[in-house]
């Protein structure tokens, strides 16, 4: 079975098969690894390969999106079935580039700098979010038109909450 693992915007193809329960053969970057995978407790795993022992925390944050910790270092890995990814790419190609601007963290909306109907440039600040005594600027990823704003000044938002929509256009 083949998966595409995405880490820091880099796609890596990984093939895997189960040789016996708990033992896996994994092909990654041309290397062939035999991995002994043991679930020590929920979301905490002991991995042995090449006689190297690793304690690894793996939490599935969302469907296919994993938060992994190895020796104090933190990694975000997206794992998608290669077939499904190809299918999704085919469907996604040519689709509109409407941008959903979501809150990257829980906080309070400090200031709304753009309103519905405003044109924005890529990198322009849309909203200032306040959390933990810090002001955090949320910028537009594209040039476009703000088509709707759901954020309200002074209101609390949770991580991942939709703040506004931007349609790619030119002024």
């Amino acid at each position: 079975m083949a998966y595409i693992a995405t880490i820091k915007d880099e796609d890596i193809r990984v093939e895997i098969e189960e040789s016996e329960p708990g033992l896996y053969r994994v092909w990654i970057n041309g290397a062939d690894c035999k991995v002994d995978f043991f679930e020590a407790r929920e979301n905490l795993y002991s991995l042995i390969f090449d006689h190297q022992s690793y304690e690894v925390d793996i939490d599935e944050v969302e469907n296919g999106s994993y938060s992994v910790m190895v020796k104090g270092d933190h990694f975000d890995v997206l794992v998608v079935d290669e077939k499904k990814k190809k299918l999704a790419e085919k469907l996604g190609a040519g689709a509109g580039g409407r941008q959903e601007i979501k809150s990257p963290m829980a906080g309070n909306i400090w200031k709304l700098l753009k309103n519905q109907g405003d044109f924005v440039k890529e990198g322009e600040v849309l909203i200032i979010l306040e959390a933990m005594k810090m002001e955090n600027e949320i910028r537009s990823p594209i040039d476009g038109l703000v088509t709707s704003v759901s954020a309200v000044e002074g209101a609390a938002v949770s991580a991942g909450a939709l703040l506004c929509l931007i349609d790619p256009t030119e002024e």
Partner: protein
Amino acid sequence: MFNKVLIANRGEIAVRVVRACKELGIATVAVYSEVDRASLHVRVADEAYCIGPAPSSQSYLMAEKIIEVARKAKVDAIHPGYGFLSENAEFAELCVENDIVFIGPNPRAIRIMGNKTTSRVAVAEMNVPLVPGMKENLLNAEHCLEWSEKIGYPLMLKAAAGGGGKGMRKIDSPDGLLDAFRATKSEAIKSFNDDAIYMERYVDRPRHIEIQVLGDKHGNMIHVGERECSIQRRHQKVIEEAPSPIVDEEMRQRMGAAALSAARSVNYDSAGTVEFIVSGESKEFFFLEMNTRLQVEHPITEMVTGIDLCKEMIRSAAGQELTIKQEDVQMRGHAIECRISAEDPDNDFLPTPGKIAGLRVPGGPGIRDESGVYEGFEVPIHYDPLISKLVVWGRDRDNAISRCRRALSEYIVKGIKTTIPFHARVMLNEHFISGDFDTSFIDTHFKMEDAAHKRPDEKVAIIGAVIKAFRRDKENSQRITSTTEGGGGVNPWKLSGRIRSLSNR
């Protein structure tokens, strides 16, 4: 000694003070805001009172409310921790008026040291070296030009009421001077409600080194060595160590004597810290400011001297004499503190409030974890992101660094991102290891190397995630098979047809 103490703070420092009180046999009273009901400091204290809504301006900064609770709970004294009301002279006076001891210095010392201009005048009288510059405030643009010629470039413009790295600017040439004068002034009034600014020399390769002092109400005062605090991000300390890699015994004694003079200028009578800016080139040191409170980084001094600063501070507030003499103070080994915050180091240190889904804290020799959280705790959005301080001790600096690296690799916080990976990378940085750094370390020496840094365990992370995905997919497909086998109202033939039609799309 006191019978009962109220701690007017939250988080790890409130827990720290409760521990000191317990060791001294003192009962403790916690105060908390409405969102802090589940906080650790509330659980560890003997009594707890809710003092208002989440914003600190309506809770932890409400002096009157805290005094009211103190009277109700019949406490003898209030420990303010750091931040919040800890350096508020009016609050210290309010305590005195209500017959409650403020665990900190006398209010006059707080007031004088709380302002850059008055503190510089006070310590200059005691011949404490100051960065060459003005002792008064800048009046206008002409005054600014006049002083710039006396001081020379590069120079700094600073807000008199400033602190925490806000309200200061480095100016390299006369071109930008007057614009910077106006900008610093307007920033000063916005941030500190006071537009007074002054000018001083810029110190080359600046390091930030501070001396811990301890005083009592009987006129005794000692210094207990230095802390190196040059590893800063946006002028906020993130890693501290004691001793400093550039301070030898001779320099330590000179800095210690200067710190004592500075403290004596205000009859200092508690635990406090005199901060110096030190030129990494010439090793000249200049008075920066005095913090009239217990510092975040106090544990590293405790680790190398064996002195419990928090307990000494409480004892001295209760009118007891210091139990340590200057000649008894010795530094042994090396200590490092990493401030662990709910911030994402891979995403420009964006705050990451949220629930701590899992927590494993390092152990073993030489490790001290000063935590304010626990597994299952939800880090609120309203306060400082510091969740814990990892403090390690080693026989020497090299041993402390390798121990710190080991402890960080054991430290697991799940559910929210923290600065643990950032600290792990600093502990591998060659400039940090060699001790060759200044306050610009993170911007100059760290970012580039960090960007190029190949993370050795990336492959392990990918393999782990893929195996987990594979096991999940396998389990799901088995579940489909077993439900279809069980009948359950689904006609397996129909289902199979549907799967086929999907895969043909």
